[in-house]
C-alpha cells in the first residue's frame, strides 16, 4: 500500500469523485474516490456515495456481458467509497475534432442502444464519458446507471445526450444527433426508436416555457 500512495496522481477533480492515476498489482490503474462532500448532510452524503459506488462497480461489470467495452474493475472498497479501474489509453470524445465527434456519435448510439435493449440506462450520457481508444469506443462512469425497462428512463438518457450536444457542441448538434440516432436505430429497430423519441418530446414539453406546447 505504501508504494501505491506514492504513485497517486490526481488526474481530475470530477463533479462526483476525484480521479487518480495509480497502479494496481503492477497494472496502470485509475482510482476513483467518492470523497465526502462537506456541504452535503452526512446521512444523505453517505447514502449517495455508498449507492453509487456499489452500483458503478456492479453495472460496469454487468454490461460487459452485452459486448460493451468498459474498464475492468480491479477492486472496490465500499467503506472508503473507492474503486480501482483499468486505465484506458485514449482521448475523450468531447475533445475530438468535430468531424470525429459526428462519426463517433453513431458508435455511441449503438452502445446506448445495446444498453437499453438489455434494460440498462446509463444516467449520465455526456461526451466526456466516452473514450476513443485505438478505434475502440469505451464507455465510463456508471454511477447513475440503473436497471430499467421503462421507456421514460431510456428517453431521459437520450434527452440528456441531446442537451449535451446542444450546449457543448453547438456547431455540429444536428449532424451529431442524427448520427447518434442512426446508430441507436440500428440496434433498437426503427419502431422502438421512434417510440422513445416521441417520449423525449414529451419530456421536453414538460420543461419550463417549452416552445413545443
Amino acid at each position, binding site marked *: 500500500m505504501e508504494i501505491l500512495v506514492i504513485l497517486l496522481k490526481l488526474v481530475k477533480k*470530477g463533479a462526483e469523485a476525484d480521479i487518480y492515476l495509480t497502479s494496481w498489482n503492477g497494472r496502470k490503474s485509475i482510482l476513483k474516490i467518492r470523497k465526502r462532500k462537506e*456541504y*452535503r448532510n452526512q446521512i*444523505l452524503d453517505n447514502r449517495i456515495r455508498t449507492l453509487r459506488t456499489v452500483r458503478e462497480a456492479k453495472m460496469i461489470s454487468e454490461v460487459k456481458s452485452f459486448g460493451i467495452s468498459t474498464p475492468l474493475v480491479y477492486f472496490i472498497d465500499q467503506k472508503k467509497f473507492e474503486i480501482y479501474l483499468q486505465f484506458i489509453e485514449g482521448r475523450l470524445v468531447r475533445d475530438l475534432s468535430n468531424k470525429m465527434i459526428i462519426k463517433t456519435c453513431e458508435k455511441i448510439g449503438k452502445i446506448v442502444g445495446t444498453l437499453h435493449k438489455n434494460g440498462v440506462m446509463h*444516467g449520465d450520457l455526456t461526451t466526456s464519458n466516452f473514450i476513443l481508444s485505438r478505434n475502440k469506443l469505451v464507455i465510463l462512469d456508471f454511477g447513475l446507471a440503473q436497471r430499467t425497462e421503462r421507456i421514460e428512463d431510456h428517453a431521459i438518457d437520450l434527452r*440528456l445526450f441531446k442537451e449535451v450536444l*446542444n450546449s457543448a457542441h453547438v456547431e455540429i448538434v444536428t449532424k451529431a444527433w442524427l448520427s447518434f440516432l442512426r446508430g441507436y436505430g440500428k440496434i433498437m429497430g426503427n419502431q422502438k426508436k421512434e417510440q422513445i423519441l416521441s417520449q423525449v418530446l414529451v419530456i421536453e414539453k414538460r420543461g*419550463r416555457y417549452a*416552445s413545443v406546447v
Partner: protein
Amino acid sequence: MLCLGIESTAHTFSCAVIEKKGKNGKILSDIRKIYRPPEGEGIHPREASRHHAENSPQVLSDCLEKADVKITDLDMVSYAAGPGLGPCLRIGAVVARSLASYYGIPVYPVNHALGHIELGKMLTGAKDPLVLLVSGGHTMILAFLGKKWRVFGETLDITLGQLLDQIGRHAGFASPCGPKIEELASKSSNYEPLPYVVKGNDVSFSGLFSATKQIMPKGLETACFSLQETAFSMIGEAVERALSFTGKKEFLVVGGVAANKRLSEILQSICKRHNCKFFVSPKEYAGDCGSQISWVGLLESSKKTGTKLENTFVRQSWRIDSVEIPY
C-alpha cells in the same frame, strides 16, 4: 443613455431607470410594488394583473422622481415581454407602449431571464460565468456560447422556487415562502431521508415535493431542514457537474432563491473545491426588478434599433436559450 425598464412578469410590478455610460451602468432608481396573495394561496394571475394595473402610475412616477428625471429625458423604454403570466405581462407592455407612442421613445421587449443574468453580471463584475438561475419561474444552469445562453442543466418539472412555495403554502404560509422555510430549517438538524433525483445535469423536484408533504407530520422544522438539504444538494451536484464539464472559472447565482443563505453556502463550498470565483447577485437585486429589464434594454440598444409598436409582443413561454445575443 437613460432607459426606463418595466418588470411585470409575476408578482412584482417594478420600474427602474438606469444610466449607461460606455460599458458601465448606474441604477438611478428602482421602485417595486409586490402583489401579496392571501396566506396559503399562490399568485392569481388576474388579481396580480389588477394589482399591477392599479399600482403602475404610482410606481412609475415614484421611479422618475427618485431618479430625478422627466419622461422626456428618457432615451428609451424596455419591458419584460416574457416568460411570465400573460395578464401580468400585458400590463407592463401596455405601459411601455403608451409611453413609447405618446412621447415617441424607442421601445425594446426583453427576456426576463436574460435580465437576471445580465444585471447579475453588471453588479458583480463577473465576465464569463457559469450561471445558476433559481427563482419561482426558473431553475437552470447556463453558460454563454456562440451568441446564445446555452442550458447545461435544468429542472425537468417544477422549479426550486415553486417547490419551496408549494411546500410553504401547504403548511399555510404566505407566498413567497422561501424565507419562512429557511428560518424553520435553521432550527433543525434532524435529517429525514427524502428522494434525491439527479439525472445527468438535470434535476427533478416533483417526487421530493410529494415526499416532503408526507414527512410534515414529523415536525415542520425537520421537514423544512430535510427539504432544503436534499433540494440544495441536488442543485449543488448539478452545478458541480456543469462546472467540471465546462471548466468555467467563474460562477454566478441569480434569481429570488439566490437570497437563501444555506444555498449560497453550499455553492460557495463547491466553487472553492473547483477553484472557481463565486459571485452572487446582491440580495436587493436578486429577485424580480425593473433594473434587470432596463439593463438588457440598454445592452440591446447598442446593437439594435427599437421595435415597431405593432411588433411589441408578449410571450408567456419564451425560453432564454432561444434569444440571440448581438452584443
